[in-house]
């Protein structure tokens, strides 16, 4: 058979399979991310149905998926919001960082995976999935709740932390010597700051350049700019994902909304491919041995996120029930944690890291939204009695 034909057959089958899984997830009311991961594991080496020809194609698609994920994430925020959130919620944000990065870092150190893997695992347990959490908030009608701004500003804080964390992680993963590493981290941080300042001061100029009443032109300009900056960022040892994120932040207002609407289907497609690709890289035989550890880590990070939510909401003057809701809303992990683990695995971190992260995200992406749904009536009952 012709190579292209096989590629289309395989890729088509994967996408169709994801579609069916997505429909299933919708019906049960959970996030489709865990199902995509499982699908990836099934298609990978050692899985039920290994893909032969399209793996390289899927790998490029996955890279695109990460870029689009972070670009659309950046589009959701404008630079002002980021700055307000940074100054107004620094204390809760730091509690979030310390409490939730610790479990992953400690776990990696206890396993003897070394400092680089510890930094990667810290990121895996730290970042809440803003995508899943936003969906939980809107599905359960929590958007109008008074604790919601607290939850959202924590998410913004996390995303901003990611903009600094990701380049640092990528330079560490590159395994440079201490001096060269420090220089590379310095360059990365300077790049991030320069882009943030440009976004804050000259956002309008970029917008004026990108803006177009024609949706085709707008789409091409936004994606083109994001990929260009992503490639440039990659060259400078800042990850491509961060570059795309910063482009998203630089664009705001109506333009960002239009671009978001145009990009959403594209992002959904390639992000799903990204999860599959991560699953592909994960050997199913390795998941079972780390399943117990992943469950324990998930349990610990559920408690730490709960505490984070309670702390942050109490500071904002929210009642007991609202504090609990804030904590529960922060539990889901998803795209970011996989992005981080993906970077680490790609750079040759400990071979078990991918499996552990996959199992961990599987649990929390599925259980987070479910927990919120199940616990809601209890919280209401407690509030009524108090």
């Amino acid at each position, binding site marked *: 058979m012709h190579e292209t034909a096989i590629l289309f057959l395989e890729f088509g089958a994967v996408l169709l399979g994801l579609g069916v899984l997505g429909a299933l997830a919708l019906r049960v009311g959970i996030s489709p991310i865990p199902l995509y991961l499982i699908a990836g594991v099934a298609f990978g080496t050692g899985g039920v149905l290994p893909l032969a020809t399209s793996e390289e194609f899927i790998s490029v698609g996955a890279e695109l998926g990460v870029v689009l994920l972070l670009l659309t994430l950046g589009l*959701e*925020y404008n630079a002002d*919001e980021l700055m*307000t*959130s940074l100054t107004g919620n620094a204390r809760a944000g730091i509690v979030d960082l310390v409490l939730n990065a610790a479990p992953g870092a400690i776990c990696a150190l206890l396993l003897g995976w070394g400092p680089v893997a510890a930094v990667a695992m810290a990121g895996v347990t730290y970042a809440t999935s*803003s995508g899943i959490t*936003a969906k939980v908030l809107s599905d359960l*009608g*929590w*958007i*109008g*709740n*008074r*604790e*919601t*701004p607290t939850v*959202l*500003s924590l*998410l*913004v804080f996390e995303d901003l932390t990611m903009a600094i964390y990701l380049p640092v992680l990528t330079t560490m993963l590159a395994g440079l010597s201490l001096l060269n590493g420090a220089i590379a981290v310095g360059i990365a941080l300077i790049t991030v700051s320069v882009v943030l300042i440009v976004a804050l001061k000259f956002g309008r100029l970029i917008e004026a350049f990108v803006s177009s009443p024609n949706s085709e032109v707008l789409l091409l300009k936004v994606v083109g700019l994001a990929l260009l900056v992503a490639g440039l960022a990659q060259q400078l040892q800042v990850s491509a994902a961060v570059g795309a994120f910063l482009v998203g932040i630089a664009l705001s207002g109506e333009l960002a*909304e239009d671009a978001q609407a145009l990009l959403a289907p594209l992002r959904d497609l390639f992000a799903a491919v990204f999860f599959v690709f991560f699953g592909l890289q994960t050997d199913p035989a390795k998941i079972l041995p780390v399943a117990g550890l992943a469950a324990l880590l998930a349990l610990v990070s559920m408690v730490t996120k709960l505490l984070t939510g309670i702390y942050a909401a109490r500071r904002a003057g*929210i*009642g007991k*029930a*609202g504090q609990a*809701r804030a904590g529960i809303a922060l539990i889901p992990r998803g795209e970011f944690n996989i992005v981080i683990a993906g970077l680490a695995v790609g750079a040759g971190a400990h071979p078990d890291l991918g499996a552990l992260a996959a199992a961990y995200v599987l649990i929390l992406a599925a259980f987070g939204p479910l927990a919120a749904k199940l616990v809601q009536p209890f*919280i*209401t009952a407690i*509030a*009524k009695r*108090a």
Partner: protein
Amino acid sequence: MEVEQTALPGIGLRHDFTTRTGQRVGVVSHRTGRRDLVIYDKDDPDRACQTVKLNDEEADALAELLGAPRIVQRLNALHEQVEGLVSVQLPIPEGSPYAGRPMGEARVRTRTSASIVAVVRGGRVFASPGPDFVFGTGDVVVVVGSEDSTAEVADILARG
């Protein structure tokens, strides 16, 4: 009465206040234009126990019902009083020959017998503007007159 405003990063804005009877209500303004009318739980004051999702049109209709019934009544009364009289809102389109020129140069009343009663610019209303009032692109001109004469005004504003 104090209305509290809270930013919702990534979503939009929330405004809320407590009524005199102690019921907390709010409106979440999504960036997409969607409006949620939110009613808070009395036992758990942080929780929205009822959320009514409204699109642009529905939110406008609700606002009108709540806030502007008298204006609507008066407008209706005006239309009933004088049969054949209409009031229309005409934008100054891009490329209009009168953009950047004073209203007097258009000689609207002389040429059509319809009257310009107000100009709306960026949410501000300039009532009964004088002949020196300078039109800008994007202004909305409120004209009162017969159906034919107001149509002529639209033509003048667009093409001169």
